């Protein structure tokens, strides 16, 4: 009964979305307030019905209702409760339901908090949201119904893929989807602006908080996915340049560019056409990401099932939305009036520089990810484009960008003084040089690039500190002035500095973990000891344990440093009888400061020894801490009064040329 209720709620949501697809547009055309207002109610009702559908599926999972095919295929009575919740989206159908739930949440948020938007703009935004929603409801109902019943009810479920039975599943997909789908708001705003044929600085002010929110979630989602892969897949890597990872990186790069270009538009009323294009491209890349992952054209951890009808359907959605919005852009963008002028050396130009490099880096990732697909389609040759390609193209493009990061916030709007800014960055430069020299002195020239990487990371971090120091007038040496200035500094300025600082932190982690990490692969017998980077790990023996839905064999290791015990590590292998004895390796991690020891198990050998893989990863946690702090910077910026979602209207509105 509950499953049918959920199915029915989803159909009702589709009906509402179809109404919302046209009524606000007509209302906006005819200036009919009632028709425009209708969109608010339908958006809220849509959210209510999708939430009901989602709750129904969750209920089926928690109650282990195996008459629902989706539950039977992905759940098990013995599975811990948290995984019964998370496995709702640990499969294709459920994850699409999560996708539309988040879309509906965002639609409802616009309806609730968009009170300060001009009525026609709000109506059009909600209509565009509904176009997207209708397409995905149809996709779910026609090709991926999560509520499908089985004729014969099985006694036990087939269990969730053991690799997904992890806390990571509770965080990674919802965060990632909040990011992907959050960009749909920027997209809807862009399309609505194109429909109206007008756009102004206030538009950017409305779009920015949504973009910021989506960007924060995507940052956290990617970081969580990376950390999950790091500890779950058992070989210590944190980024594989896997097509599916690239699918999430591309919207992040475009979204980061959008965040920066929207600043120019808001402050200087410039770069309008480009910002609109970026908003469209960012969400298009999110859709492409969904397509790559869900259609089964790529093979990865994320591929749940492969049904050509689904791939075709998503491809169709992709073509309609990307093609349609780009065509609309080509048609209407020339109507948008050009904005303020700026000199080649200015804050605007610095942000253009940022956009140029981010967009180019995004394009190279795009080429590297899709080239194998296109080549196979054209010639039938099967190739793979791996990490070397991305390191060789992405790296050189990111270096100038990172060098420019400290300059941007210090340059003045309109016309800047590069020489003056360089002088103010002397201290940051000195910090970077000292760091570079120190790394050279201690580590020698085993890797030439690494000291420069550390130097660059320090430069970015010190540059962010310089930015704040300049703004609060640290040189005045007067606590009163500093305190007053710090309190008066807009939160968005703090947000910028914190996020830029975090970028340096992440870079430092990446450089350190990939350059100075050590690795040992060795077969050990009980009572033997292995040494890595000054740590001695002695293998004490094997322990057998029973988990809720698996059997576990763990190896007990005692870790010593200079003779004293500092910890215990128990990497294990889990066997899941419900999945025909599929096994997973659970790596053991020992955190020392921000560095980690990483230990995972291989096979048992005939002579009683066990294969282990051991890594020392110096400063590795900085990679994800940096991402966390980056998102924190976004949150700070979001809490800025000026950008708050319900912020009052700006005092002066610059009205651009009306439609046609």
């Amino acid at each position, binding site marked *: 009964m509950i499953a049918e209720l959920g199915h029915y709620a989803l159909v009702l949501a589709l009906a509402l979305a179809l109404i919302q697809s046209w009524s606000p547009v007509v209302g906006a055309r005819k200036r009919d307030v009632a028709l425009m207002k209708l969109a608010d109610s339908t958006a809220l009702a849509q959210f209510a019905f999708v939430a009901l559908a989602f709750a129904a599926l969750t209920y089926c999972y928690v109650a282990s209702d195996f008459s629902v095919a989706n539950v039977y295929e992905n759940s098990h009575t013995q599975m811990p409760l948290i995984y019964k919740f998370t496995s709702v989206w640990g499969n294709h159908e459920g994850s699409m339901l999560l996708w539309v739930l988040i879309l509906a949440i965002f639609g409802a948020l616009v309806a609730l908090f968009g009170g300060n938007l001009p009525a026609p703009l709000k109506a059009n935004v909600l209509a565009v949201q509904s176009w997207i929603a209708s397409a995905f409801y149809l996709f779910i109902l026609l090709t991926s119904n999560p509520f499908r019943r089985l004729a014969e009810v099985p006694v036990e479920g087939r269990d969730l893929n053991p690799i997904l039975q992890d806390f990571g599943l509770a965080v990674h997909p919802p965060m990632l989807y909040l990011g992907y789908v959050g960009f749909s708001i920027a997209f809807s705003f862009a399309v609505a602006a194109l429909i109206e044929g007008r756009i102004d600085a206030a538009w950017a002010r409305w779009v920015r908080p949504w973009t910021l929110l989506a960007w924060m979630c995507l940052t956290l989602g990617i970081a969580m996915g990376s950390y999950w892969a790091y500890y779950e*897949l058992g070989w210590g890597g944190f980024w594989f340049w896997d097509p599916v990872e690239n699918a999430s990186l591309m919207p992040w790069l475009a979204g980061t560019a959008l965040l920066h270009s929207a600043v120019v538009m808001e402050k200087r009323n410039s770069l309008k056409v480009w910002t609109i294009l970026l908003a469209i491209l960012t969400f298009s890349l999110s859709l492409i990401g969904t397509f790559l992952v869900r259609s089964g054209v790529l093979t*990865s*951890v994320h*591929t749940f099932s492969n049904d050509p009808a689904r791939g075709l359907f998503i491809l169709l959605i992709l073509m309609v939305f990307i093609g349609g919005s780009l065509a609309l852009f080509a048609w209407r963008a020339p109507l948008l009036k050009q904005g303020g002028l700026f000199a080649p050396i200015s804050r605007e130009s610095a942000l253009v520089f940022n956009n140029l490099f981010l967009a180019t880096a995004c394009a190279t990732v795009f080429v590297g990810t899709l080239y194998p697909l296109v080549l196979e389609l054209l010639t039938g040759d099967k190739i793979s484009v791996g990490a070397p*390609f991305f390191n060789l193209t992405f790296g050189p493009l990111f270096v100038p960008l990172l060098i420019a990061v400290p300059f941007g916030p210090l340059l003045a709007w309109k016309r800047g003084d590069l020489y003056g800014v360089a002088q103010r960055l002397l201290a940051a430069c000195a910090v970077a040089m000292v760091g570079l020299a120190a790394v050279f002195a201690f580590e020698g020239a085993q890797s030439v690039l690494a000291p420069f990487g550390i130097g660059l990371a320090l430069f970015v971090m010190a540059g962010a500190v310089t930015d704040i120091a300049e703004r609060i007038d640290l040189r005045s040496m007067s606590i009163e002035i500093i305190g007053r200035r710090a309190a008066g500094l807009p939160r968005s300025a703090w947000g910028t500095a914190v996020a830029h600082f975090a970028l340096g932190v992440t870079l430092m982690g990446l450089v350190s973990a990939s350059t100075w990490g050590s690795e040992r692969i060795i077969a050990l017998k009980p009572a033997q000891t292995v040494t890595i980077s000054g740590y001695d790990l002695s293998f004490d023996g094997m322990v057998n344990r029973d988990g809720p839905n698996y059997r576990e064999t763990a190896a007990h290791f005692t870790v010593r440093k200079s003779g004293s015990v500092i910890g215990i590590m128990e990497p294990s292998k889990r066997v899941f009888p419900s999945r025909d004895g599929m*096994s997973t390796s659970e790596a053991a991690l020992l955190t020392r400061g921000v560095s980690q020891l990483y230990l995972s198990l291989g096979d048992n050998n005939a002579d009683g020894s066990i294969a282990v893989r051991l890594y020392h990863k110096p400063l590795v946690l900085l990679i994800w801490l940096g991402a966390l702090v980056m998102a924190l910077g976004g949150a700070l910026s979001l809490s800025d009064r000026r950008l708050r979602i319900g912020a009052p209207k700006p005092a002066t509105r610059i009205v651009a040329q009306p439609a046609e």
Partner: protein
Amino acid sequence: MTRKQRRLILIGSSLGVLAFAVALVLSSLRDSIVFFNSPTDIADHKAAPGKRVRLGGMVKMGSLERGDNLQIRFEVTDGNKDIPVSYHGIVPDLFREGQGVIAEGHVEPGGTFTADTVLAKHDENYMPREVVDTLKKQGHWQETSAPNAAPVKAAAK
């Protein structure tokens, strides 16, 4: 400076960065792509010795030998030809005889394949798509096994 000049500077520098990126992409594509080969391809000497390639197929039943010091040997088959593979390190959890596998490495002059990376599937039901295609081509594919794959990586240096 006029609007036109400023725009020219903007467009000029954008084209510069794009040209740089295109040069980077082209040069690294030439060096860092890896072709996928079936055992038949390798047996027909389609891959030059020493060149980095991927080999995909099934791990032949009864071919797996574990040596000392994490050295392993197995044969990859597509039902037509078998290629001996040697690998040093730890194989993924789901690496088994009779299952799909992708090995990345190079062909030795003697015809043996030395792998430095072994990818196996991620789930007991799935098989790498490339392997499915290879098996279909040789007519050894049975529809009972589910298509599609999710490779897990195992790397050794």
